[in-house]
């Protein structure tokens, strides 16, 4: 039977005895998880800003709000028959309005002006060849067709944003993975020191009949506490990043592209839950390695 009071007391004492090492571990776990969280938040923000342009979509054929069935079928047939079109997706008025509401959720004055009837349906088109000239030529075939309002292209800016985001994301991702590896080793090392400091107690515990888990749990809990404290550091960092960096982008006047550059509450919660899950994973791996390597009951 476990005495929770004993386990909590021993865990606290272990942390306090190696306070400097414990702080170093928490900071390293926190920084690595903050980097990972930052990577995730930027991915979410870029995806939000370029939502219509994901998965290789190079141009969008916007229909008139009053386009008839014949006009719609004509565009549809042309998309289906064109050898330059790899695939396409129709976004109807209701879906388009949902996207619109999401895009301008922070600008209620815009939402007040438009209703679902005022928002056009559209076709997202993925060409077989992403070459800008080919895309331009292909998209232009739809301009001026009956029922077509306009054709917009992904253009260099959006592709540049996506490319930059992908590259920066990769660096952040690789950096955070390396640091998470270091965090695991630091947790392992902190626990190895704690186990070493308590060697005489552990020997007594073994001989008086303490079970393997009774001996192990305070050390494993110590690793878990370090991981969770690191997760709290990362969540604070995520919150600051969202409120003072990402939201500043989306508030920037005149940058239409960045209007959708934001992280909503649901995405924030998902990122934070992922950060906590990774912290628990790192702690469990580090702790298990430490007790397996240094505690031979």
């Amino acid at each position, binding site marked *: *039977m476990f005495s929770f009071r004993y386990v909590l007391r021993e865990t606290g004492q272990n942390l306090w005895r190696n306070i400097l090492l414990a702080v170093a571990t928490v900071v390293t776990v926190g920084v690595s998880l903050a980097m990972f969280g930052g990577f995730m938040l930027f991915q979410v923000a870029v995806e939000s800003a370029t939502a219509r342009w994901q998965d290789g979509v190079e141009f969008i054929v916007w229909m008139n709000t009053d386009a008839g069935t014949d006009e719609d079928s004509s565009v549809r047939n042309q998309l289906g028959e064109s050898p330059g079109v790899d695939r396409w997706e129709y976004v109807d008025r209701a879906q388009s309005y949902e996207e619109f509401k999401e895009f301008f959720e922070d600008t209620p004055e815009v939402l007040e002006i438009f209703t679902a009837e005022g928002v056009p349906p559209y076709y997202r088109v993925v060409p077989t060849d992403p070459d800008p000239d080919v895309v331009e030529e292909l998209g232009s075939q739809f301009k001026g067709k009956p029922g077509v309002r306009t054709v917009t292209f992904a253009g260099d800016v959006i592709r540049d944003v996506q490319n930059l985001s992908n590259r920066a994301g990769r660096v952040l991702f690789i950096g955070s993975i390396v640091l998470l590896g270091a965090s695991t080793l630091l947790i392992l090392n902190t626990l190895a020191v704690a186990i070493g400091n308590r060697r005489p107690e552990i020997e*007594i515990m073994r001989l*008086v*009949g303490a079970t*393997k888990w009774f001996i192990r749990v305070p050390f494993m809990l110590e690793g878990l506490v370090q991981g969770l404290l690191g997760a709290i550091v990362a969540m604070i960092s995520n919150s600051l990043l969202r409120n003072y960096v990402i939201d500043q982008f989306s508030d920037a006047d005149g940058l239409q592209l960045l209007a959708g550059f934001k992280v909503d509450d649901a995405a924030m919660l998902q990122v934070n839950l992922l950060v906590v899950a990774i912290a628990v994973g790192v702690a469990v791996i580090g702790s298990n390695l430490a007790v397996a390597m240094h505690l031979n009951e």
Partner: protein
Amino acid sequence: MIKMEKVTKVFKGDVVALRDVTIDIGKGEFVFLVGPSGSGKSTFIRLLNREDVPEHGRIFVAGRDIGGLSGWRVPYLRRNIGYVFQDFKLLQKKTVAENVAFALEVIGKGPQVINRQVPAILELVGLSRKMDRFPRELSGGEQQRVSIARAFVNRPLILLADEPTGNLDPTTSVGIMRLLERINEIGTTVVMATHDSSVVDSMRQRVVELDRGMVVRDQARGVYE
């Protein structure tokens, strides 16, 4: 209470610590293990506590074959066996009472049991007035009393003592032996490895002599040599 059947223990490099040992120790017996250094006394004790397992033979403690005991059951075996060390092995940052309570706490006993049993055992070993002292504030004999209190606080069936008077002067040793005798009188089986001839001669209990891993003498109410 303890039974060994043709037990052989071999360490790395083909060092034979115990060879074909067969012995039967009854409940409530007091047994001295004597013999020169390296004769196998400590190995004998370590096998009883399942710190080691023999290469051949079987060991029974309280009727149970401990050789076949799975790892997770070993702690439960040890709760029935107290262990007293030559160097006391007290935790220096804990008080006398905390050292004794530690043995109960780590096997999951609650505060009520601890608060009842710790003062009682400290009374038995004569350290009631020093329960808040730290080990460094005690004499060698007193530290060994704490060690015995810790080993006995859970009221084990068997008490193993490996040279418990090895670090003590003769007068203090007498006090420790009186204490072990009292514990034995309560009904606990005591097995004590020792080099101390005066202790063995004064007690006149059963003596098992080991030499190069073999039992060369097993004498009721014996002497050291």
